[in-house]
């Protein structure tokens, strides 16, 4: 057993973090809120140049052929900067779904995704709204028991504003002639797999978001003085942060475990994901609550950057299954007849 990441994985995380922290500044995010699409094509090209858009695309299709375990740390970094671009969605949901669908669709689109020339988004009924449908070149949509593939010309989009101004959500109507790409048992398997991957992506980003809120707050409470002392020296303030640190640190393992389960196509992936999604989003929501509190009135403003991360955490907690959904799945597994729960079921 080895629960650690390789040196290469950690180095890659570090270099991606450096790039993202330099490029995706809070000022840039605020600027993106003012733009119509909220997206920056130049940034997407940069991400493609770094190989990030093709992380999970097979080498034969021009990608890096990496796994969910390789990507999970990067998804965390995307959360750390609250990246508006749909990189996590594309890498963890769209690419694997295309791979699972295979055939011509995969052959056509995967190279374009890897090179950064095309974006594919996935819309499941669980989510009601489709992320980034306005910039998609292809949409893979759940319609009842089917999966259909639609081009932008075949869909009608209605924009819905999210509490996170970075998220672009759409109610999508699709014409009757959109191509059915999977149906029946195949489709439901693919839909569930996409759902689990989406939840993994949200969970990993939640870890990054929580970390960012902690970093901002540790800095703020070290600088802000009241009663002649840094407020971070007050035990009540420290304990707020320590509680978040515990919750955040412990949410990492289940998220990494979920990435591993998905990467190795384990049967238990669904409930491993539920553990991770629930724990990570709970940590991020706690981070938001405590970090606002230790900022005092500053934390209640639009001008202080904290809310950029707080609002994404709020939104992500409610997509790809909210806490209730994931806890229900975990309970379903616990109470299933003959469920493997005992000492010999550590990784079951």
């Amino acid at each position, binding site marked *: 057993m080895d629960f650690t990441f390789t040196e290469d994985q950690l180095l890659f995380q570090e270099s991606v973090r450096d790039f993202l922290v330099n490029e995706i500044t809070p000022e840039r995010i605020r600027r993106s809120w003012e733009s119509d699409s909220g997206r920056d094509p130049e940034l997407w090209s940069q991400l493609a140049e770094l190989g990030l858009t093709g992380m999970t695309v097979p080498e034969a299709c021009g990608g890096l052929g990496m796994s969910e375990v390789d990507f999970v740390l990067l998804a965390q970094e995307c959360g750390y900067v609250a990246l508006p671009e749909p990189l996590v969605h594309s890498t963890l949901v769209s690419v694997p779904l295309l791979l699972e669908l295979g055939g011509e669709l995969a052959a056509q689109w995967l190279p374009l995704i890897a090179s950064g020339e095309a974006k594919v988004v996935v819309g499941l009924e669980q989510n009601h709204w489709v992320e980034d449908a306005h910039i998609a070149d292809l949409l893979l949509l759940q319609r009842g028991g089917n999966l259909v593939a639609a081009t932008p010309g075949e869909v009608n989009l209605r924009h*819905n*504003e999210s509490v996170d101004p970075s998220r672009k959500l759409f109610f999508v109507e699709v014409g009757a002639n959109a191509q059915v790409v999977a149906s029946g048992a195949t489709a439901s398997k693919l839909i569930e797999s996409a759902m689990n991957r989406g939840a993994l992506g949200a969970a990993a980003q939640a870890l990054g978001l929580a970390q960012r809120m902690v970093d901002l707050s540790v800095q703020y409470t070290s600088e802000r003085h009241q*009663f002649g002392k840094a407020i971070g020296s007050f035990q009540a303030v420290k304990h707020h942060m320590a509680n978040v640190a515990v919750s955040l640190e412990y949410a990492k393992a289940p998220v990494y475990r979920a990435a591993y389960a998905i990467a190795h196509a384990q049967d238990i992936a669904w409930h491993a994901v539920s553990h991770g999604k629930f724990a990570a989003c709970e940590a991020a929501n706690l981070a938001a609550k405590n970090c606002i*509190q230790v900022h005092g*009135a500053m*934390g*209640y403003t*639009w001008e202080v950057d904290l809310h950029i991360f707080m609002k994404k955490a709020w939104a992500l907690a409610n*997509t790809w299954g909210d806490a209730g959904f994931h806890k229900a799945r975990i309970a379903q597994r616990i109470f299933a007849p003959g469920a493997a729960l005992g000492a010999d079921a550590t990784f079951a």
Partner: protein
Amino acid sequence: MKLSFSAEDEQFRQEVASWLRDNLSGEFEKLKGRGGPGDEHSFPQERKVWEQKLAQGKWTCVGWPQAYGGRGCSIEQQVIFFEEYARARAPGRMGHIGEGLTGPTLIAYGTQAQRDKYLPGILDGTQFWCQGYSEPGAGSDLANVKTRAAFDQASGKWRINGQKVWTSLAHESDYCFVIARTDPGSVGHKGLGFFLVEMDQPGIQVRPIEQITGTSEFNEVFFDDAECSSEDIVGEPGEGWKVAMGLLGFERGVSTLGQQMLFQNEFDEVVRLARSNGAASDPVIRQRIARAHTELKIMRYNSMRMLSGQSTGDGSLQKEALIYKLFWATWHRSLGELAMDVMGPECEILDAPPYALNRLQSMYLFVRADTIYGGTNQIQRNIIAERGLGMPKEPRGTL
């Protein structure tokens, strides 16, 4: 103990309800349910006109003594008034700070001349107030205010220099009560003065601060040789802290009754939503709603218990109020979380661009402020332990 309202009180209830029914209509119809927590920026002008309407019916300052122009309502009647006010979904009170804070403070600590000058504008709903306490360096450590007031012999006026921050509704206010340092070189709560300052003057600049909700209710206020007449200092120079603390007693006392009743409205809205969207059939949600309801009752009963046994007799509260603020702020923050869980995934979607939060979403954000303003939860706990329980003081400065 007698836990019921008298026939006379019920009669009073009818009177309030029927006045609101008759008057909260026509041009005021659109104000229903508006201007509450998280929505204070809405319809300020119309809500000011509504204050004047209330005044015509003698429904402002119902708890003030009759000698000062109020109705002299008993605690029971004040409870009833606020219950009916909330039930009618009448708008958030623009006059709240004048009625709840300035007025009682002037009645307790002001001169007759100050009362004559300022109470009428509060009573008739034409003059509005804001609270100039916090500064960039003085939040929890309020006694650290740096704003200075110097008496200018030539003009016979005070000159105020410095900065306040987080000043709610400063941009809609005619007056601000300001704590400023009158003794140069003094520190802590000694050497302060409590001033009544006119906002509309060249020495005052107001800059709105955008809140997490995307709207602006609080402001930065800059004082650059702002003037204040020699009659407009409450108490003696150097003794403003006593007045400032007296005012906080009012802020945490009867003046929160109105807010309590709004909690009931918000709770009802959460229940209504749970019924209509099916969340009410989720056992976890049901139990959380039951808890929230129990705690709402606990708050209501305790506030009435505290107020009916008032130790001070003037609508301010002492020790009990310390617990009260911590309890309701924390309760309200949990109600925000519950509301979002009842909404489910829909809670991510705004009503409209740009950033138009619906009522429950804006409540969810606003409740974050409840545990901060008027003394943060941490400060409240320190006070409960130190002043309430007499535990040893934390090593810290003033307050």
